[in-house]
Structures are given as structure tokens and as C-alpha cells.
């Protein structure tokens, strides 16, 4: 029994040490950076032509977040208006602070805000300790505050406290024990902090009285005769106590077992109903192990009724009333602490056993929307469920071990480390000059290894590569992304949440190249045609769903919604009937590239395969020995998450630090294009990854309430339907109920006009509005328009709806066949439900086919009519069958404004990586244009160098156009680049038939100035600053402080550092980030067992300057107490020498060796090997010592009797 107990104890300690709940609470989604894109320089006319075929994976530019330049600043508020003590508040925002409370103009951890520094608070009177306690709060209330972690405060060490001459033992703090006058034994575990009956015996006093107690108690308090392990009912002792008669048996609980009481009420042996006859006197004479067994199986109830040998782990002693069982004798009985799991076929579970409960397929980035992780555990006979952090912020990790031939399950909620995937830098696939991929396997293997080093990450490949031929560039589209295995949940219903940013990171644009075989003939796709294919959409959606609740995916009920946008033939409005793609694998012209991903069947299975897949590993990538689990040093997210500029046609979640290297390829194909003189066009295909939205209506809301194993949460409720909500809003409750808030709403939303910006007016017409210019009826083509519509219910109240618009009428409404998709372009609100719907963008050009009833006026002055057709669908799924119309009169007119640059990537005045003199540059313009650049101020537009590629294609509704190029020869410390752009590039194209000419194109004569700085010095880790080095000695698992200081780089050493090393004992690579972010001094506490260590430290700054260093040291564990190696008399002194530095204490009056050192008399004031006391003849000195690692002698180091 003791061995089993010992195993369980050690096992639980192992769990406590190794389960790192918070090791990965290291958050640094700080600034992002674009990695160099790979652009092959132009070489020939062919290549120039093929520049159009650049595959712009804009959404996938590698943006590594490697640190911040400056940490976000805080003030510290002593107490907020809400009563929160010591909170960091935004600088200047002291309105959050309670009146009269102190406000410091620095963070609460700073020196200046001392009163709010966190430490350990000791209640001297009660002997309790509190971690992470603000100083002032502690001291004001009478506590003693220590600027230390709880485990470093000696008074707070926990151990076994022996009280009242050994008759009582309690597990408590050292201080509490001292207060009670007990003997403190830190080395004794909680489980062993009991008084075993084997340590006690019969104390006979006053001739025949007897007490079953400890020797000390007998000697000191009772002055009796002690007999170890004999019972008071021992016949030979002839006491007043004896075996009770069968009808007068009393029992009691002791050490979780049922014990007999003798006739004096003293403890005897473990209850055994067969030991009440005269021949059983031996059982009443001495302490002995019981021979009966308690079994809880069905049919073995008599063992429970007749035996009190509970094991203390799976069964304990309770009153018969609590157990509901009547023992044969007495009032106490063993009660099983094990559980029966009725939800799992009545499976038996041991007390403290825990296991995971899943809601869908797990891992492989396939967790369905609304699913979360739970731990179920057996707690003293009752099965309980614990929800891990919402939105899969925590995941449940489980493992089984063998315990005496039976499997024992362990499970814990642990942080989802998926965010680390975004920090991983992967290799790009390389292509030769002919566009052939090279070293593909090697790159894939390397990426697999890199990504796989984080246990919660997996490598996701998008592969649309096929080798180019003489005929076509085909597809040069292959890249790898490191994504979370367990994607995070999102507040997908909330447009103010981060859902849009997270999902948008998986958006992509791809430029396809089209050519005519003969001039004026049909158009054929010649380059990157794979982006038109179903495979593209399928693969991209698969990536999209890996990021979180994004894209086309299912909820826990298997209900699918689409949530992405792909190629739509209607975008290519200059293609005519008969134009074709050059491969049958491409999507049909009349459809969009949904492929079979629009079918819920593809993904429904993930909602049904509960718990299948790849459950999380028990440990994250960092180990439980690491004091990353103590977050006291770790700062939260800092810096501006969106420091990186927006990229692509959509907002790119810059703070994600995503994702993968850009594959910007200029295919320098050397192939003969006989049609080199024919026209080419590029079509930018966009895959837009959007936040997942719940299916319309609320038919499944109630499903949330049906599963007692998986109680409802808001996240799951919202995922079941657009109208599903948790019932109460004002307060939280134990079992939230999910309801359909609009069960009887069958009315379509009413669309109305809300507002318009600028010099425009809107007039209501039948089921629509007409928008005019304020001074004239018609609006000039290509104007920016910003207006807002609203949606209301039949009562006139605002109603949440999703709306889309089309420039042509008659688009299919949502149907069950198209999965209730709203077909059309989205307003600014995207695919979120909203009460307002804003259009902000350019109107179509006059030449567009969307403009009708064009008059026959003079070229450049003609007018026509344009209509926008709006359809909205509310949350219950009602939509307006007749589209709401916004009418415009469009007037031909010259564009008089030049293009403006909205954004630079990298940002203006950024740094280049050290020793790098080239970079890619992306700029965003407010209209399509052709741009050029020069390093000289004086050059005219025509003399400058072309950008490699620009989006020259006008798209109504769009508001940003991208240009991309590569900058080289950036050899100066300050590199200035001048950019000029000329708008309306189509005017220069051969087939332009409009009224404008080259002179109508606007150019910014001044030039936009763009500056890049060189990094003067490489980033370095100062070798002397790395610690520890060499040998360190400690006891037990040692706490060490891993430190390093950086300098140089782009930001004077400010960088993020990572550590990594291999632990042979557990055959794992351990890695993690230093807790200091955005600084030059990096520090991380680790708790390590003894051994040799070679820790690789890697630091990287914001522009990817990196440096490495190693901390090489040996940890030697000293677990031996000091030994006295010499004792002698020196004059009038007794001198002892120890084999190591120690503090030694003695006592002469307690006369035993198990005294508390605090009660002994110190022989030295400091740690030393030499210890002296005055020589007193004829005295017995009981001496104990404690070394610098807190290891002390269990008994006496020495017992010295001085001669007389």
C-alpha cells in the first residue's frame, strides 16, 4: 500500500512540475516584416512580357515578427474605479483610476511604482503566503512583503509540521509551523505527513491507565511507560483497556482507514469484523497490518461492511450515513472514491484520473467551428467537467500510464501554442531560369522539420506547380505555410474582433496572363492558369480554414457555410463567348471556382469524427522544468500589432507575422512566343479568406443545450446559427442556455438609405435611391463614392443583415443549393452581419458594359446610366427577392488627379538587413497606374526604371491598387528612392478606344520620396554577457537565469531572442522565447535538473539581423547534507569542521536529533566550514547543520559528549 501511495505521490509531483500551463504565455505579436521576395531580373523582351505573369502572392509575403522597436508604454494605477489593484493603464488615461489613488507615470513593474511591484506577502500571524501580491496592499494590511517569488521565501516553504510531541502532523508553511511551535520537516511530503500507527504504542500511566500515543508524548506529558507498537488492549500490559464485546464495538476514522477503538476509546487496529472473538486477542495486542480486503465490485458489499482497510487514494473512511452503507460494527465504513462514467459505457475511472472530451475531429487544422476542449476527471467519486480556455485558447492533452497493470489516464488543459507557428520562417521553393523547381524535396523536408519542431504546428503545402513549357508558363505556384494544428476559435460574429485580420492573412492574389493567338482573336490563358482552377480554390480554402474559424467550413452540427471569394468569370468582362482557357482542367467560364469545396459533404465528417485525428501532445514544445511556466517576468503583447502596412487587396493581418515567403516570380522563360507582338492582358485572381459565419436562422440553437457532457458556451451557441444567442446577458450563469432569438421572423430586411459623403445627394425612388452630384445630375466616371445603406425589420428597427451588390440585375438569390450564398460584391462590412452597409470605392468607368443608355454626345462628354443592385439577407435567412437599386448617371470626363501612394511596404524610413543592399518594394495606390522609380532626383518619368508589375486593371468598387518592384544597389547609409506614377495606363494600350489620350494621363511631377536606411553594424550577442557558463552547484532542480545582452543591428540591439537545447533524459528538444521583449538585455528563468547543457541562443531584430551564442554549463546537484569531518577542543572552545560551507546548530536540552534548526543555537553567523562554541564539560551536544543549498542533516550530524 505504501509503495502504491509512493508511486502516486511521485507521479503527482511529476505532473505538477512538468505540466507547463503557462510556459507558452510568451506573446510577442509585434511588428512584421516582409522578407525578400524573389524576383528574377528582366533579361529580355520575352521576360518583359512575362513580367505580367508575376504571381503575386501578396497575402503570403513573409512577414516575420521578430520584435518591436519600442515597448508600448504604460502608467500604473494603484486602484481603478472598478476596484482593481495595481493595473497598468494606457499613458495619460488616468480617468480609469479611482479618485485619490496613486498614479505613476511608468508601468507597475517599474522602480518608480514600487508600491505596485509584485512579490510575496507573508501573514506573519497566520503563517500564510500569497504570490504576486502588490507591495502596498500587503504592507497596509499588516503583511510582510518580500521582493521574491513565493518559492524563494523561506517562511513559505511547505512541509510537514510535527506538533504536540509528535501526536499531530500537519502539512503547512514553515512560518505557520514555527508559530505553532512545531518541528518543520520540509523533506516530508504531504502524503507522508501522517502519524502511522506503527510509530505509536501503548503508554501506561497511573498504574493501569493507557493512552495509545507517541513515545514523546508518553515521556513528556504522561510520564508513563511506553511500549512501541503495543496496543492499550494488550493483555500483558494489564491496563483498564480491552477488546470490546461484539455488541459494543466502536470505530473511528484515522488516516483514511476505519479503526477499532478499544474499551477505553483508544485506537487499536484496522477494523475487521472477524477479529472480535477471544481467539483474536492477538489482533488486540499489537499493531499489525489488516488481512481483510475491501472490494467495491458488485456482489462484494460484505467486504465493505466488514473491513476498514480503505487505501486512502481510491477509498477513504467516512461515516456510514455519508456512504449510505451500514457496517457490521461501528459507524464508519470505507467509501470508494472511484467513479463510474455513465457517458462512456459505465467505464470505471480511478480517483484523480482525467481524460479529454472533444467535440470534433482534432488536429490537422480540422477542429470545427464552435468546438472546444474539456477535461473530465474523477474527483472523490464524482465525475466533473472542466472547460479549457474559450476559443481553443487551451487544448486538452491526455496520456495514459500503466499503474499496477492498469491504464491510468492523465489529462490537463494546456495553452494552445499554435501562435508560435506564425513565428516560423520557412524556406522558399527555388526555381531555375527556366522556371523549373529545384531541390523541391530538400526544401519540403527542411520546412517540415522547422515547422514540426513546435508540437502544435503542422506544415501546410499549397501546390499548384506544374513545369512551364514552350507553350505556357503554366503554374509556378508552390509554397509551404506553418499553421496551427488546432486553429484558434474566433469571435466570427463580431466585426470589431480580430476575425477579419486573422482570416485575411490567408487571402491571396494571383495574376494570370492572357494572350490572343492572333490579334483580335479569342483570349487564352497562358500563365498561372492554375489560379482559375478548382484545385486552387480547394487548396486555398484548406489553408484558409487552417488559420481559424475562416473560409468554407462546418460547425459542430456539420452545417457548412462558404465564407470565401474566388474567381468569378463575370469579373473578366472583356472576354467574349468562345474565348477559352487553354486547358480543360480549368474552371468553366460560366461558374466560379468553388469546385467541390462548396459541398458540405467534404467537411461534414470532421464534425462527426469526434476525438479522431491528432490529439494534442501532453507537453508543448517547451517543457515542464522550465520556469517559463512562471509568467512573472513575461510581458504581455506590446507594440503596435499592425505596424506592418496593409498588403494585398485585403487587410493583411500584419500582427500575425505571417506567413510564408513571397513567391514573386518573373519567369524568365526562354521560349519563343510567336505571338510576341499580340496583346496580353493580366487578370488578377483573388482568393479572399473571410471569417466563418454561422448558417442563417436558428434551427440548431437548442442542440447546444442537449449535451450534458459538453455544456453550452457562447462560442458554440453562436456557431449553430445566426440567430442563436445565450439567453441571459446581464449575468453569467453555470449552465447557459442557447436560444433562437428570431424564431418567428419571416420578413425580409427593409433596405433604406442612411447617408452619403461629399458633394452628392440622394433621392429616394421606388425601392431604391438615385444619387446625383450636388451641382449636376451626373457623376463623373471613376469618382470615389462613399455612401451607406441601412437594413431594418418590418417594425422599422435596425436589423442585422449581410448585403451584397452587383452592377447587373438578376443574380441568383441565396438558395439551399448554393448553401445560402449571397452572390455579389461585399460592402465594407464584408461578410459580417451589420445594420449598416457602406460602399466606398470607385464607380465603373463610362466604357464599362454596366453603363447603359449611353447617349450619342461628344466623346469625352457622353452620359449614361448605371445601377447598383443590392440584396440583403438577415440573420434568420430572409432576403429581399427584389433587389434594391442605387441609380447613378455617369458622365464621361477626364481624370484630373494623379495617383497617390497610400502605403509602402516596407515602411518608409525602414532599415535594411545588415549587409543587404536590395529589397522588394510594394506600394499601394488609390487608382490604377504605372509607376517608375529612380535613385536620382532629377530624372523624368520616362527616364526612370519601370516597376516590375502594377495592377493596371480598373475594378469598380476597388480602392487600392498595388505596384511591386525590386530595389537594388542600396549601398548608402541613407538610400533615397524617387517614385513617379502615371495613371490610366489603359490609355496607352493598343486597343483603347476611349476619348482620352496620353496627355490626359496624370503624373506626379514631384515624385514620392521613399527612404531606406542601411544597418551599419551586425546584430551581436555579447559573448561575455551570456550566462550561465561553467559549473554551477545547487540542490534538487535548480533555478538558473539564462541571460544575454545584444547590441548592434538596426535598432541598437533591440531584438527578440530564443533558446533551444536538447534534453537527452527525455529525448526532446526544448525551445522557447526569452521573456524580455523589445530590449537588449534578455533574461529567462529556467528550472533544470543536474547535467551538462549547451543552450543555443538566437536573437533577431525587426529586419532579420540575427546573432547566435551558446550558454555552456554544467549543473551539479548537491543533495547531501554537510558532514562533520573533525571535532576537537581548542582552548576553551569546541570546534567542528564540516566538509562544505554550512550553518550548524546545536541543542543540549531537547536531547534529541530531530529538533527544528530554528530552535537550536547557532554555532556560526554565516556559512562556513569552521564552527565554534564554548567548551562545557560533561555536556552532550546534539549538532545539526544545513548547507548553502538548504540541505540539512535529517538527524544529528554529530552527537558530541564533552569529557569532564
Amino acid at each position, binding site marked *: 500500500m505504501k509503495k502504491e501511495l509512493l508511486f502516486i505521490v511521485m507521479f503527482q509531483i511529476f*505532473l*505538477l512540475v512538468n505540466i*507547463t*500551463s*503557462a510556459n507558452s*504565455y510568451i*506573446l510577442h*505579436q509585434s511588428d512584421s516584416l516582409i522578407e525578400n521576395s524573389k524576383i528574377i531580373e528582366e533579361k529580355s523582351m520575352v521576360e518583359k512580357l512575362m513580367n505580367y505573369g508575376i504571381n503575386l502572392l501578396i497575402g503570403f509575403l513573409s512577414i516575420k515578427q521578430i520584435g518591436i522597436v519600442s515597448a508600448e508604454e504604460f502608467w500604473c494605477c494603484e486602484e481603478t*474605479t472598478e*476596484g*482593481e*489593484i495595481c*493595473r497598468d493603464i494606457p499613458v495619460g488615461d488616468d480617468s480609469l483610476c479611482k479618485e485619490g489613488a496613486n498614479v505613476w507615470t511608468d508601468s507597475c513593474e517599474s522602480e518608480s511604482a514600487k508600491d505596485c511591484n*509584485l512579490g510575496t*506577502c507573508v501573514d506573519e500571524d497566520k503563517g*500564510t*503566503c*500569497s*504570490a*504576486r*501580491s*502588490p507591495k502596498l*496592499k*500587503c504592507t497596509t*494590511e499588516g503583511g510582510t512583503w518580500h521582493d521574491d517569488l513565493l518559492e524563494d521565501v523561506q517562511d513559505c516553504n511547505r512541509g510537514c509540521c510535527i506538533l504536540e510531541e509528535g501526536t499531530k502532523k500537519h502539512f503547512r508553511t514553515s512560518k505557520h509551523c514555527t508559530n505553532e511551535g512545531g518541528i518543520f520537516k520540509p523533506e516530508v511530503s504531504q502524503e507522508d505527513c501522517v502519524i502511522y500507527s506503527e510509530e505509536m504504542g501503548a503508554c501506561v500511566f497511573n498504574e493501569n491507565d493507557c493512552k495509545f500515543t507517541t513515545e514523546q508524548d508518553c515521556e513528556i506529558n504522561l510520564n508513563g511507560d511506553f511500549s512501541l507498537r503495543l496496543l492499550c488492549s494488550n493483555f500483558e500490559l494489564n491496563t483498564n483497556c480491552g477488546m470490546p464485546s461484539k455488541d459494543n464495538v466502536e470505530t473511528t476514522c484515522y488516516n483514511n482507514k476505519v479503526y477499532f477503538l478499544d474499551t477505553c476509546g483508544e485506537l487499536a487496529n484496522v477494523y475487521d469484523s472477524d477479529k472480535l472473538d477471544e481467539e483474536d486477542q492477538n489482533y488486540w495486542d499489537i499493531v499489525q497490518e489488516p488481512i481483510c480486503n475491501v472490494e467495491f465490485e458488485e456482489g462484494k458489499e460484505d467486504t465493505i461492511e466488514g473491513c476498514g482497510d480503505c487505501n486512502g487514494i481510491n477509498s477513504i473512511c467516512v461515516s456510514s450515513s455519508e456512504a449510505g452503507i451500514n457496517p457490521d460494527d461501528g459507524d464508519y465504513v470505507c467509501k470508494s472514491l472511484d467513479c463510474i462514467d455513465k457517458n462512456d459505457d459505465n467505464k470505471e475511472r480511478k*480517483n*484523480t484520473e482525467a481524460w479529454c472530451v472533444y467535440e470534433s475531429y482534432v488536429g490537422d487544422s480540422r477542429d470545427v467551428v464552435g468546438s472546444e476542449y474539456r477535461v473530465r476527471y474523477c*474527483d*472523490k467519486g*464524482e465525475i*466533473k467537467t*472542466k*472547460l479549457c*480556455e*474559450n*476559443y481553443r*485558447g487551451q487544448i486538452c492533452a491526455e496520456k495514459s500510464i500503466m499503474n499496477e497493470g492498469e491504464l491510468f489516464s*492523465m489529462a*490537463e*488543459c494546456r495553452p*494552445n501554442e*499554435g*501562435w508560435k507557428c506564425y513565428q516560423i520562417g520557412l524556406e522558399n521553393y527555388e526555381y531555375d531560369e527556366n522556371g523549373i523547381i529545384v531541390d523541391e524535396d530538400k526544401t519540403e523536408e527542411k520546412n517540415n522539420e522547422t515547422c514540426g519542431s513546435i508540437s502544435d504546428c503542422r506544415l501546410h503545402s499549397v501546390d499548384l506547380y506544374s513545369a512551364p513549357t514552350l507553350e505556357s508558363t503554366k503554374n509556378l505556384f508552390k509554397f509551404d505555410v506553418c499553421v496551427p494544428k488546432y486553429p*484558434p476559435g474566433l*469571435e466570427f460574429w463580431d466585426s470589431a474582433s*480580430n476575425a*477579419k*485580420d*486573422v482570416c485575411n492573412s490567408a487571402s491571396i492574389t494571383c495574376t494570370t496572363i492572357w494572350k490572343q493567338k492572333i490579334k483580335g482573336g479569342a483570349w487564352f490563358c497562358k500563365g498561372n492558369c492554375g489560379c482559375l482552377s478548382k484545385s486552387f480554390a480547394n487548396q486555398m480554402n484548406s489553408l484558409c480554414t487552417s488559420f481559424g474559424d475562416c473560409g468554407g467550413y462546418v460547425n459542430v452540427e456539420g452545417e457548412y457555410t462558404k465564407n470565401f471569394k474566388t474567381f468569378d468569370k463575370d469579373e473578366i468582362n472583356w472576354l467574349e463567348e468562345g474565348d477559352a482557357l487553354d486547358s480543360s482542367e480549368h474552371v468553366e467560364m460560366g461558374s466560379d471556382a468553388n469546385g467541390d469545396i462548396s459541398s458540405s459533404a467534404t467537411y461534414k465528417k470532421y464534425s462527426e469524427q469526434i476525438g479522431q485525428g491528432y490529439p494534442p501532445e501532453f507537453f508543448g514544445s517547451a517543457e515542464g522544468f522550465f520556469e517559463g511556466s*512562471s*509568467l*512573472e517576468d*513575461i510581458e*504581455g503583447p506590446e507594440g503596435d*500589432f499592425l505596424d506592418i502596412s496593409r498588403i494585398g487587396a485585403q487587410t493583411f493581418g500584419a500582427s*500575425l507575422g505571417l506567413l510564408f515567403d513571397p513567391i514573386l516570380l518573373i519567369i524568365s522563360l526562354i521560349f519563343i512566343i510567336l505571338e510576341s507582338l499580340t496583346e496580353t492582358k493580366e487578370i488578377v485572381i483573388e482568393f479572399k479568406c473571410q471569417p466563418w459565419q454561422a448558417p442563417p436562422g436558428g434551427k440548431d440553437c437548442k442542440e447546444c443545450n442537449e449535451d450534458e457532457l459538453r455544456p453550452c*458556451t457562447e462560442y458554440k451557441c453562436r456557431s449553430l446559427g445566426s440567430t442563436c444567442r445565450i439567453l441571459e446577458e446581464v449575468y*453569467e*450563469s*453555470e449552465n447557459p442556455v442557447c436560444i433562437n432569438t428570431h424564431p418567428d421572423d419571416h420578413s425580409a430586411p427593409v433596405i433604406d438609405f442612411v447617408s452619403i459623403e461629399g458633394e452628392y445627394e440622394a433621392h429616394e425612388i421606388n425601392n431604391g435611391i438615385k444619387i446625383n452630384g450636388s451641382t449636376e445630375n451626373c457623376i463623373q466616371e471613376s469618382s470615389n463614392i462613399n455612401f451607406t445603406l441601412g437594413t431594418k425589420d418590418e417594425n422599422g428597427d435596425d436589423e442585422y443583415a449581410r448585403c451584397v451588390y452587383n452592377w447587373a440585375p438578376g443574380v441568383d438569390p441565396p438558395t439551399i443549393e448554393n448553401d445560402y450564398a449571397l452572390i455579389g460584391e461585399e460592402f465594407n462590412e464584408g461578410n459580417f452581419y451589420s445594420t449598416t452597409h457602406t460602399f466606398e470605392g470607385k464607380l465603373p468607368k463610362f466604357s464599362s458594359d454596366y453603363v447603359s443608355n449611353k447617349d450619342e454626345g461628344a466623346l469625352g462628354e457622353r452620359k449614361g446610366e448605371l445601377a447598383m443592385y443590392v440584396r440583403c439577407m438577415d440573420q434568420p435567412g430572409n432576403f429581399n427577392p427584389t433587389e434594391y437599386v442605387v441609380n447613378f448617371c455617369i458622365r464621361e470626363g477626364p481624370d484630373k488627379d494623379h495617383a497617390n501612394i497610400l502605403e509602402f511596404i516596407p515602411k518608409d524610413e525602414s532599415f535594411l538587413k545588415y549587409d543587404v543592399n536590395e529589397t522588394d518594394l510594394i506600394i499601394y495606390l488609390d487608382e490604377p497606374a504605372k509607376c517608375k522609380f529612380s535613385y536620382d532626383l532629377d530624372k523624368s518619368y520616362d527616364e526612370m526604371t519601370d516597376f516590375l508589375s502594377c495592377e493596371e486593371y480598373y475594378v469598380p468598387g476597388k480602392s487600392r491598387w498595388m505596384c511591386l518592384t525590386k530595389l537594388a544597389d542600396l549601398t548608402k547609409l541613407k538610400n533615397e528612392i524617387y517614385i513617379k506614377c502615371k495613371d490610366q495606363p489603359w490609355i496607352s494600350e493598343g486597343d483603347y478606344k476611349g476619348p482620352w489620350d496620353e496627355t490626359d494621363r496624370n503624373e506626379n511631377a514631384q515624385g514620392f520620396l521613399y527612404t531606406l536606411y542601411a544597418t551599419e553594424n551586425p546584430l551581436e550577442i555579447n559573448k561575455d554577457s551570456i550566462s550561465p557558463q561553467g559549473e554551477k552547484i545547487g540542490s534538487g532542480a535548480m533555478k538558473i537565469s539564462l541571460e544575454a545582452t545584444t547590441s548592434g543591428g538596426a535598432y541598437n540591439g533591440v531584438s527578440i531572442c530564443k533558446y533551444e537545447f536538447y534534453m537527452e533524459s527525455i529525448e526532446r528538444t526544448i525551445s522557447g522565447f526569452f521573456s524580455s521583449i523589445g530590449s537588449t538585455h534578455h533574461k529567462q528563468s529556467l528550472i533544470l535538473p543536474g547535467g551538462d547543457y549547451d543552450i543555443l541562443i538566437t536573437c533577431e531584430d525587426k529586419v532579420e539581423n540575427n546573432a547566435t551564442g551558446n550558454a555552456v554549463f554544467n549543473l551539479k546537484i548537491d543533495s547531501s547534507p554537510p558532514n562533520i569531518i573533525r571535532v576537537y577542543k581548542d582552548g576553551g572552545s569546541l570546534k567542528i569542521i564540516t566538509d562544505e560551507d554550512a550553518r550548524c546548530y546545536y541543542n543540549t536540552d531537547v536531547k534529541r536529533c530531530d529538533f527544528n534548526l530554528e530552535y537550536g543555537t547557532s554555532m556560526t553567523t554565516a556559512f562556513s566550514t569552521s564552527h565554534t562554541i564554548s567548551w562545557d564539560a560533561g555536556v552532550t551536544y546534539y549538532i545539526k547543520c544545513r548547507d548553502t543549498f538548504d540541505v540539512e542533516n535529517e538527524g544529528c550530524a554529530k552527537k558530541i559528549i564533552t569529557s569532564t
Partner: protein
Amino acid sequence: MEKKGQVTIFIIVGILIVSSIALFFLFRGNIIPEIGGKSEQNPNIFLESCIEDKIREGIDLISIHGGYIENPLNIYFKFEDENSPQHISYLCYNQEPYALCVNQEPMLIKRLEDEIYDYISGDVRICFDDLTSSLEKQGHIVDASYGSFDVDLAEGKVIIEVDGEIVLTKTGETTKQEDFSVIIPSKLYDLARVVQEIVNKEAIVGEFGPTDMGNYPDFEINEHRTRDSSVIYLVKHKESNEEFRFAVRGAVIPSGFGMGAG
């Protein structure tokens, strides 16, 4: 005749002796008169019966609200088996994502003592006054002074130490009693110690898991996670059924790992 007279004398003498003895014990100065009348054997018992309900009421209120009668830093939460929600105090709190909670009440036991003190202070004085009134009604001349009182939580009990003095005079005899104490059995102290351990675990590692619960075999610990990632704890002493509730919020991992503009 003579014999009858002797018997008579012996009887009379016997009566006299017995009466003398009885009178001696009755009127000697060391007899302390009973204070408080029949139902109160001593002032402590009187005070206890007077104040006990109020103390228990205070303990219950404080326990279900997380250690305070009122605290602005709280969460409004309803348990399934209760009719209405309660305000439950945060004992460890941090609003920021990924940040461990900060211990809001490091001297929890002292806080509980102070809360009980505030709750019963008026009633202690009233009970003391009632005690003196009761003694007066019993014919004593009472000279009482009331100082203050202390609340002390200890293992298995709540101790109220009243600093006061009562001097009683009756039939020329004077007695004095001072420093009264009331002891109410309660597991509040024991619960508070467990609560502090849970709070420490939450503050240090951000989690108190099923494994940790095994360290407290005498207590039943339940927890519930709310929508905003607060955790409500319910700690119950199994034998006495006394319970303590409190809330914690820290080490929250927000949706989408908190990344993006939000």
C-alpha cells in the same frame, strides 16, 4: 424523663449545627453570584447566544461573495440551483490577455476578519449592553465598561474577543469579570487557507487543475469558466458543508490568440 430531655437537646443542637453549616456556606464571601440568570451560566454564553446568529449571517454573506460584503471588483454570476445571481469578488485579477492575475487580497484572512468585524460591530456593543441590563435585572449593581472587540479566525472556529469589564456588586460582595470571548464553530479559516492556495496557483501558473484538487481531500472544489474567461471557484468543506466562492481572471488567451487589429 431525663432521657427525653437529652434527646430533645441533641435534636436541637443537631439542627443548630446543620443550620450553621448551611448558613456558613451560604453567606461566605467567596461565593460568586450567578450572572445572567438561569439560562446564562456565564457572560460568554450570554454573548454567544446573542451574537451567534449575526456572526453566522456575516460569515455566510462574506463566503458567498468571495470574502467581502461588498466589492466593486466582482462578477455577477448565477449558480444553477439558486434563484438569483450573486456578486462574486475577484481575489486574483488581470484584465490583460496572457497576463497572470494579480493577487487582489494577499492578506485574505485578515480581510475576512475585518469584514466580520464591520458586520457585527454594532451588534457586539448591543449584546454587551444587553448583558449588563440582564445583570441589573437580577439585582446586581453593574459597573461596566466596553472597549472594543477583535475577530480572530482560527482552525475550526471564529473567536470574538470582547475587551470589556463588568463589576458586579450585590449584598456587599463585588466581583469583576473582564475580557469575554465568544467562540463560534466555523470552517471559514480552513476554507480561506485552501482558497489562498488556489489563488497562489492561479497567480503563479495560471491554472488550478484536477491534479491539484487531489491535495485537498477534505474539500470539494468546483470551478466554472465564464464567457469572458473568468473562473468561478466554489470550495466546500465536505463535513460541515460550509462553502466559499470567489472568482479569478488571469492568463486569458483571447480568441484568435489575440492577434490582429481586433
